[in-house]
């Protein structure tokens, strides 16, 4: 599934939202891939991710980084880290290039920025998945800014009503970062960006929209 695509929000709101994903491919390079994935996650963990993990190992808000890394199996699944800083993406790509782990690596984030980071370290982006928007009965969708939070879990595990409940808690004094971390727990793949979520939750609490 394209679970890290379709993260909704204006361009300026996506400047601090990058997912770095690795994936062994079934029957091609998944056998014996666990040590490589562990190395990949350990490398990501050195760059202060705001989330880390994957479907098989869960996320930083359910387990420690070491438990996540130790739990990696040989499996054609995605393993992810979330970052808020373009500079870290460049450093990560440089290190991944030098390590030659052989895993496929995907960056989800602004294409302009991804291109810049890749070219700085001499990588040529191979393939892109473009989001062409949401179609159909869009009147059924939650409010736009609530969607900006829920779409950070592409599998839809973060419910719009949970976001609305957290906004009400923030209005009553809850720390927005704590609220964002609670919302991050159900996102099994560990691609929910708690920094961006906290900012949007506070914005909704302040403006009512």
């Amino acid at each position, binding site marked *: *599934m*394209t*679970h890290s*695509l*379709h*993260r909704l929000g204006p361009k300026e709101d*996506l400047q601090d939202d990058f997912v770095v*994903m690795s*994936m062994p*491919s*079934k029957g*091609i*390079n998944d*056998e014996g891939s666990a040590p490589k994935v562990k190395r990949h996650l350990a490398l990501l963990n050195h760059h202060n991710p705001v989330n880390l993990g994957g479907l098989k190992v869960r996320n930083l808000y359910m387990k420690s980084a070491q438990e996540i890394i130790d739990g990696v199996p040989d499996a054609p*699944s*995605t393993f992810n880290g979330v970052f808020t800083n373009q500079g870290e993406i460049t450093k990560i790509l440089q290190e991944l290039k030098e390590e030659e782990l*052989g*895993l*496929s*690596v*995907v*960056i*989800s*984030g*602004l*294409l*302009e920025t*991804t*291109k810049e980071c890749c070219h700085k370290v001499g*990588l*040529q*982006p*191979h*393939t*892109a*998945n*473009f*989001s*062409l*928007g*949401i*179609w*159909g*009965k*869009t009147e*059924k*969708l*939650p409010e736009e800014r609530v*969607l900006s939070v*829920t*779409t950070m879990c592409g*599998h*839809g*595990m973060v*419910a*719009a009503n949970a976001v609305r409940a957290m906004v009400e808690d923030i209005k009553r004094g809850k720390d927005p970062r704590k609220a964002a971390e609670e919302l991050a*727990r*159900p996102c*099994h*793949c560990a691609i929910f960006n708690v920094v961006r979520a906290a900012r949007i939750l506070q914005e909704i609490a302040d403006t009512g929209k």
Partner: protein
Amino acid sequence: MNDEDVCQVDLEVCVECGICIEGWECPTGAIYQQKLTGSRAIRSVFSNPLSKHPGTGITGRGTEEMKTNDVTGRFDFGQVGIAIELGRPSTGAYFYDVQKVSRAVAALGVQFEPKNPVTELMNVQTGDIRSDVLQEKVLSAIVEFLIPEEKLTEVLRAVKQVSQEIDTVFSLDMIARLDENCFSPTLEVARHEGFNPAPSTKTNVGLGKISEGKVLA
């Protein structure tokens, strides 16, 4: 206690994603997973990312798609991958709506992705979905296929048309190889047809390698 004092999960709209059990802790243990039997079992496969689909061999409801394209070569220059993710975001979809879309694109002779779990439920010539699951609701179901670039205009027009005939939403993905400037001519086609590609993408950076001794089929 009267029935009206009891909260219950509405099983008609529940898509069996399992998150009420996996993601949050019920302090009294009142929420539990009932046994899923018959066609209802399919809800979990398409809604709970922890359910492993027997056909794709991976957890989640999709495929490797472009995530591993640098080693699979699934999408080459001149080809376009399209994924129509019904129910995403935050809405869910019944398979009768999935069928409206799969029929619309099947009529154009697209090549459905054989490893996709929706394709497994489908007659790939007609786009008809297995009749026993049509009334089942899932969190999302992805109609995924490959076309030659010259078919893109026709397909995008059909997708836009069928979007007006369904009772849910879909997120639309377009996969293409990139040139040295990170450009794909498919972007111009999409814009011409009234689609507005988002600034944020998923980009495979080309670091994958095929293990020694493995060859592509």
